């Protein structure tokens, strides 16, 4: 039995608000091997951050409710059954998380050097002096120029890119097995984004860390993730290897995501696919396919019943009624994309 590093089974998370129950995550499942990178892609509000926080037990309960049928297994153990001590070790040592907004994640009143030192000391028995030395090495590793001077600076004295590097240094301080990165480059300019992605790749390879990379930008993960899961309205509607998702998308939503963004390497007169409407309200999600109100292939059954999972290649699944056996389309109704295989 090969044990997965992380196995998420039927994760369901709701928020109880005055307006009612927001079903933020509605049955999300995926798994991750050691050293592997999974991208979680989707537009805002689809449940990426709630999913990510659930993997660290960071959702505040209440208003959040993690439904009892949800399982998050780290090396086979359910993290929701961890006691306080085990959870303390899990967070920071087994798994670490980085966020879009480093300014909010860092402590504004503490020098960055001290913050990284404390992260280290929290999990490792080191002398203060040894910890400080190790932090200098870490800061250098994450590409912070003049680490000695930066050590004594506060977060607001650093640029956005530098702050992101500090957060990465803290995340990697205890060499976690799993890194969850929630839109780590969304707030950065493209040249800085490219540097941060390079850095994450380098550290991941050096430490064999598994990464869950959350983004709304398919470009960012094109050459980063082995596996991609596309989320829509609290569910994963398609998952597969990167090649399958980019070159043979099966779900109409994935196809739309790929067609809606202009590409630098394509002629500018190519019309962007634009699909009318917006994602459904998670206070009252539709009974059938979550994408049905915007899908140009929508059939009667799509409105009534949630589509089952259809398996294509061994590493590719999509939840869409188009692929039901008694339906005409055995192949995707949209053309395949350039395949360079």
């Amino acid at each position, binding site marked *: 039995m090969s044990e997965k590093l992380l196995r998420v089974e039927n994760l369901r998370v709701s928020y109880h608000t005055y307006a009612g129950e927001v079903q933020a995550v509605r049955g999300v499942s995926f798994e991750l091997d050691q050293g592997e990178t999974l991208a979680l892609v989707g*537009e*805002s509000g689809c449940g990426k951050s709630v999913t990510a926080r659930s993997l660290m037990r960071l959702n505040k309960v209440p208003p959040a409710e993690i439904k009892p049928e949800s399982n998050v297994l780290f090396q086979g153990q359910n993290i929701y059954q961890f006691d306080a001590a085990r959870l303390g070790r899990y967070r920071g040592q087994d798994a670490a998380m980085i966020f879009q907004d480093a300014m909010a994640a860092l402590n504004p009143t503490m020098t960055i050097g001290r913050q990284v030192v404390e992260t280290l000391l929290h999990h490792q028995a080191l002398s203060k002096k040894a910890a400080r030395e190790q932090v200098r090495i870490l800061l250098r590793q994450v590409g912070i*120029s003049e680490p000695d001077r930066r050590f004594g600076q506060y977060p607001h004295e650093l*640029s956005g*890119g*530098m702050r992101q590097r500090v957060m990465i240094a803290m995340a990697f301080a205890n060499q976690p097995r799993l890194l969850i990165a929630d839109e780590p480059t969304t707030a950065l*300019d*493209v*040249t800085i*984004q*490219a*540097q941060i992605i*390079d850095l994450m790749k380098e550290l991941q390879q050096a430490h064999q860390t598994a990464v869950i990379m959350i983004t*709304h*930008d*398919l*470009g*960012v993960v*094109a*050459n980063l993730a082995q596996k991609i899961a596309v989320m829509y309205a609290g569910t994963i509607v398609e998952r597969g290897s*990167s*090649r399958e998702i*980019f*070159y043979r998308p099966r779900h109409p939503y994935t196809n*739309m*995501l*790929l067609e*809606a*963004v*202009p*590409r*630098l*390497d394509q002629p*500018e007169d*190519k*019309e*962007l*696919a*634009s*699909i*009318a409407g*917006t994602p459904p309200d998670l206070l009252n999600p539709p009974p059938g396919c979550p994408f049905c109100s915007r899908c140009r292939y929508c059939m009667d059954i799509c409105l009534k019943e949630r589509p089952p999972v259809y398996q294509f290649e061994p590493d590719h699944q999509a939840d869409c009624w188009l692929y039901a056996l008694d339906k005409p389309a055995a192949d995707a109704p949209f053309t395949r*994309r*350039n395949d*360079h295989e």
Partner: protein
Amino acid sequence: MSEAPVLLQVSHLKKYFETGSGHWLKAVDDISFAIHQGETLGLVGESGCGKTTCGRTIMGMYQKTGGLVCYQGQDVHALKGRALFSFRKDAQMIFQDPYASLDPRMTVSDIIGEGLDVHHLVKNRQDRTARIYELLDMVELNHEHANRFIHEFSGGQRQRIGIARALAVNPSFLVLDEPISALDVSIQAQVVNLLKKLQQEQGLTYLFIAHDLAMVKHISDRVAVMYLGKLVEITRSGELYAHPRHPYTAALLSAIPIPDPDVQARREQERIKLSGEVLSPIDPPPGCRFAGRCPYATDLCHEKTPELTNQGDGHWVACFHQLDR
């Protein structure tokens, strides 16, 4: 398109902000370009490079520090009375954040109708309602939306309301400051397709400010690239992407990820890696503002400021060591 007459001419425009004790933040520092009637000029560059300041100064929302902005031959910053009133109708600005730029206490119909009233564009209530419905149709919203408030709308819908408000007064020129940056990709495509359609139907001229170069390429006829208060390159959109001549443009383009694993793997091999960080715009040193990060910089670049010069065929570049690829 470059045969069309010039609508807006910006010459040596400067906008400095005083940061106290005699220091100046040179947000826009001696930039020149022209926008022709009916075209879309894209203005791109990383955050803080001065795009918004440039747009606002052009609109007369900021006093200039130096230089000249001429709209249809008239100095925008010297306009008074009727001429100013008419410029404020003819040139409209659309902002990134429709939440912040639209009054939450007003109904959609009042937001759109405000300009109609100010500029006396409708004779009576009936006319006004008809015109508001026409504008809602134009931006693909429903007539029922007229009596609702801003908080009832999604981001994309709010941006449509912002567009309808701008179009209400029949403008010729729109400065669009990151109008889609806050929107999701499927919604971005909706808004961009709408902007393109409206431009064609009404012969509008756009200054389209953005940091997403792929989107700018898609929507613009020509593109101007800014770096730390300076324009570094301007040319036709296709030319800029095929043959960037300024090292910064080349680096910026090479950093943009493309959603295609094979293409992206190749691009990452070829990427121009920039080291260092952007300088502060406060009292910048002489020389090219990009010199500290540029792989081609020589002593000359640190001493003298390169001028934006025409390389022929309307391709303008400010660099001593241009790339000729």
